[in-house]
């Protein structure tokens, strides 16, 4: 039996593991009956296509949209315009504290 390779769980993640009945045409992973989403895709591929048409265009889409959406997406985006190049330079990767001590990357902003 080929087990379903979709990641499941909330706090503890694992593979679904139910018997696969198909493969995702997008990424090829094995899918059980419960995890076949629209178009026969895995949930992840289906979600990214629904939103962006094609996964590869997602990042570009987001950047483009961001630049054109200062008022449409949400009003408060204006807050970020107060941070100029000088403010931002302090947050370049090489400006971080000793890498050995930095927290694990992305969530180093706040760690309780």
């Amino acid at each position, binding site marked *: 039996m080929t087990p379903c390779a*979709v990641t499941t769980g909330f*706090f503890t993640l694992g593979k679904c593991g139910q018997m696969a009945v198909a493969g995702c045409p997008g990424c090829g992973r094995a899918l059980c009956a419960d995890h076949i989403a629209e178009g026969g895709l895995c*949930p992840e591929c289906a979600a990214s296509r629904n939103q962006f048409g094609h996964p590869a265009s997602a990042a570009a889409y987001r950047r483009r949209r961001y630049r054109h959406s200062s008022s449409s997406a949400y009003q408060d985006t204006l807050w970020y315009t107060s941070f100029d190049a000088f403010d931002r330079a302090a947050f370049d990767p090489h400006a971080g504290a000793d890498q050995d001590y*930095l927290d694990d990357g992305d969530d180093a902003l706040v760690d309780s």
Partner: protein
Amino acid sequence: MTGHRGHRAAYIAFDRFPSAKGSAVHIRHMAAELFERYRGGLLCVLGGPDLPAYQREGDVEIVRFTEVVPNLLDRAQAFSAWVAEQLAPYHDTLELCHVRDPWSALPALGTGARLVYEANGLPSIELPYAWPHVAPTTLDKVRELEGHCLTAAGAVVVPSYVIKEAVTARGVEPDRVVLIPNGADPVPADLPRPAAAPGRYLIYVGAVQPWQGVDVLLRAFARLADLPDLTLVICSSVAPSRTRRLRGLAERLDLRTHWEHMLPHDEVAAWLTHAELSVAPLTATPRNLEQGCSPIKVWESMAAGTAVVASDLPVIREVLGDCGRLVPPDRPAELARAIRVLLEYPDLGRELGERSRGRVRGWQHARDQLSGVYDRVTAH
């Protein structure tokens, strides 16, 4: 995302989730309360290796921000814009957003839903530790942004009195700030000893930033070299690459140490249970003194019935009360002496452990308090 059903609630955090860190335990329980109340919802968090960009778990949809943006402030900005897009389909149905940081609060405020801001830390205080070149003028802007988000929230939830004061100093009316201490669920008494555990050991659990004081603990442990068969176990919540320097220090000091990295949360309890003592050597930095924290490792040590030796800081007093041994921060000799006394009088340690087990409240208690906050915020 799939949008076939309108979410009524969203939990948004500029944190990787799940992860081995204490913040993930917190998110787990707070988000569970939110999603139980609204029969599902949308969780927007940071992605990472092995974390899918999209998951559906029953009525909960999980979306993870996966774009690589090297500059932290640019990344926060891109995250805010991404969150705004995730929330856009639900403007008509969203009733409540729960956030942990300003980067999440900004797009949440744009939805018109009620906002609960859970302030476990404040970037204007925290940022300079990881980003030493940040200018005071930049921090002023961050502080202003924080104030904007905190004052716009229907309620601000904090884990300690210390941070409550920092939040009210940013203009939030005190009666809108609600103290909800962290919890820790009781640890079963018969948890088997981890196979890799050395005979007798002290334990440190957590991350390794300088303000955690792990180097102070290593220097203290060097003064206990005469104690036979005693090992120091460091359960790091971050990757081995981040502990390289501390492991180097341990080697130079010729210490008996055992390192575990990024243990799954459910394995940490067994390590805590079988330790002689748990040590929380936080340093006396403004980060710990003014912003505070509510170190989940201390709560979890208490729940495991293991005596805690910790730095004498207001945030620690709040948690431990008289159920632990407090020592002056940043003083290896004093820390070593306190550890030695507790090891020499094991009855004392056992008694502290038993009392601290009784002092801890389970997460359900914190969830019930949060539920009361949701009642209040959505009532008017």
